[in-house]
């Protein structure tokens, strides 16, 4: 597994939940390789934030993008070369704030990408501000008297937007998370994993999540069941919430074309343009 790492200095806090995601992802890549999906066919992206630092720690090709825009960039990779498996790592501020429109549209169009959302409910790298999914009342440097907004629910939003693979994992359950990542990458279409990720510095939720999470025995069979499950807050089920089969965006739009590979030759292009300009 070591050769999936890089020489970059790891700057996460000791005990950070992100280590769980890093380890689970590496394990998932190795398991996918056993199934014949070579690592060079897996490309990664990341937004900005503690979550995104993972880009430097994984020895795979990709784009370390802009805050929230990684979700657009990773789709751009997929659309131009549909043979690649495309994964992006977004924090909950990244995905649900700056990148929300990109994420909803990626789900709506069933873009064949995987979003791994590091769910720590805090802007950790910018010192603890409220995120779009933080519970009301959060006291951070931008909301010293407590946030007054209700949180968004990523899973219900994405269910409504048309996501075809939705799951929740927990960084302390690495084998379970590895399995979810593997399934998400294998899924043809939009996949999203909401990964509960304690932030030891600003929002240490280990105790809470250890108490509240439980592994789903049965996947919801209907959209309504999935919605109901995603709204649950007394307990936090982890596992696959929803899966559906729909043609991925690139396939629906241009079939088997791979724009980065099947480009017409110069001669062919010029000949066609010359004919087009003729009477």
């Amino acid at each position, binding site marked *: 597994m070591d050769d999936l790492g890089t*020489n970059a200095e790891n700057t996460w806090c000791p005990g950070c939940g992100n280590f769980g995601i890093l380890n689970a992802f590496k394990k998932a890549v190795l398991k996918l390789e056993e199934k014949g999906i070579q690592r060079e066919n897996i490309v990664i992206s990341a937004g900005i934030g503690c979550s995104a630092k993972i880009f430097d720690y994984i020895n795979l090709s990709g784009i370390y993008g802009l805050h929230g825009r990684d979700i657009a960039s990773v789709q751009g*990779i*997929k659309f131009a*070369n549909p043979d690649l498996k495309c994964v992006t790592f977004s924090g909950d501020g990244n995905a649900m704030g700056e990148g929300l*429109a*990109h994420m909803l*549209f990626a789900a709506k169009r069933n873009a064949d990408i995987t979003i791994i959302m590091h769910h720590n409910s805090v802007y950790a790298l910018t010192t603890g501000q409220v995120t779009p999914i933080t519970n009301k009342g959060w006291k951070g440097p931008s909301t010293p008297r407590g946030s007054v907004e209700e949180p968004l629910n990523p899973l219900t939003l994405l269910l409504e937007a048309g996501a075809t693979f939705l799951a929740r994992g927990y960084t302390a359950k690495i084998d379970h998370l590895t399995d979810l990542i593997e399934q998400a990458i294998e899924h043809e279409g939009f996949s999203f994993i909401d990964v509960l990720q304690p932030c030891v510095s600003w929002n240490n939720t280990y105790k809470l999540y250890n108490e509240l999470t439980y592994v789903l025995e049965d996947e919801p069979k209907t959209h309504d069941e999935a919605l109901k499950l995603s709204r649950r807050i007394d307990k936090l089920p982890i596992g696959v919430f929803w899966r559906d089969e729909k043609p991925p965006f690139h396939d629906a739009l241009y079939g088997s074309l791979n724009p980065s590979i099947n480009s017409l030759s110069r001669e062919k292009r010029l000949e066609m*343009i010359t004919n087009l300009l003729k009477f």
Partner: protein
Amino acid sequence: MVKEIFTFLVGGKAGEGVKKAGSVAADVLAGMGRNVFQMDDYMSLIRGGHNFSVVSSAPRKIYSHYMKADLVVCFDKRSYDNHSDQVAEGGILVYNSDDKDGMNGMGVPLTSEAKKYPVRNLMFGVGAVAILCAALGYDKKYTDDLIAQQYPKGTEDNQAYASTIYDHVFPEIGGKFKLEEGDTVRRIVFGNQAIALGAIAGGLSVYYAYPMTPASSLLHYLAAQAEKFGLAVIHPENEIAVMNMAVGSSFTGAKTMVGTSGGGFALMVEGFSLAGITEAPVLCVLSARPGPATGVPTYTEQADLNFALSAGHGEFLRIVASPGTLEEAFYLTAQMLDLVWKFQTSGILLTEKHLSESSTTIELQPDNIISAGGVEFQGNGYKRYLDTEDGVSPLLFPPSHEVIKWNSYEHDDLGITTEDPYWISRMHDKRNKKIDALKKYMKSINTVNVYRGEHPSNVITYGSTTMSVIEALKYGQINPTVVQPVYLNPFPVWEFEEFKDQTNIVVEQSSTGQFADLLREKAGIRIKEVIKRYDGRPFDPMELSKKIKEGL
């Protein structure tokens, strides 16, 4: 009377077939082997308002429409009020006598005749075509065939209507204009079509855009051609996605372009800066309209020059070029696509509504097009940001056993994030070396068009205003040298030495004279006068030639 230039103007409400009538007129005139230039003036609405289409033609190459028209057809009173003083000497004005009678010119009951048919409003355009055919002395058979070819829906009704209108006007204006035929029948192309074809010829694979006038027709044209040419043409949620997706696509090696106008480009600039630091080859077509903000959506202006030159935070190479004619738009788009790949950076093809949406007869030589390329890495031990002599690192695309990391953070040569002072300054130096390398390369290509004249003075202009200037000089029979920088960043100062201290007049469509300021600042050009127009309308050659004469 045999005329060199013949202009046809048709005006009416949106939905009455104004633009179509203009296009048919352009086809008729081009069919005579003449050169044509069509400019459509339309409002930002779908039904009603006032739109007009003006088509000028000549046996020689023609670079602009003329606002004084030989044949003016008005579908309603508003058109009459707008255009009755734009009839050229010896010209004819035909108006809709059902809308208001007793006006100067020839009244024709366009509405009451159209009422005899089920879809009457769209028929006005057909009526205008019939009037043009009569005035040019074409017979009914020609007119019938033309209508059948150009209006495939409801052909019989349209032919019957055209025949009635033809009979109304023929006794008075039949064969009034005898036009000299030209040498060959040429294809008519609109500006965004020339850009699209240039991009495809140059190797385009992926195009992203969010609709925005006047760049939308580029999206529409490419979307229509996508299947045939094997392109991915995608309309995502907004311009932010457009630019960031484009960076993603160029990461795979696909030649990628985006298109928009000022407001959409404002949303793209964060991603434009991403292209700068990741060294992503992305070409953006920026077709300007009057700003600020929403401005005037369907009109023209050159006020986004400074914005284009400095778009995106941070220091990086931005290539900016602007085509002066539709022909140039074709070749330049391909050349720009090549340059952004050669130098791995973002580029802007800056144009305006006046070029994007105007149409003209055109002769293109696709074989002269440049194919976009770049150096691809071979071997082992790939470093995405390897520092080289010219600052250009070898490219490699996934899937590869090598790891290819593009990074929006400052990075080392492997593409790993860094805060190390050594790497920060080294990467700045590396990227800046590309600016020098590009300048050196630009000295080997044409970066400034110089149309030599005999008058000892120069008119300096750029973009679509070049067409207005060339036509104004032809009309006014004045011949100063016309200097048109095609490349605006890096600015080809080396080409401007000889003009520096001569008599220079600048013509541009901006209220503050951004282009004149650029010439002063970059090339130390002494400027006698700046002729500006900023009411959203392109220059008229007659009016512009008068101003240039006064200035010289």
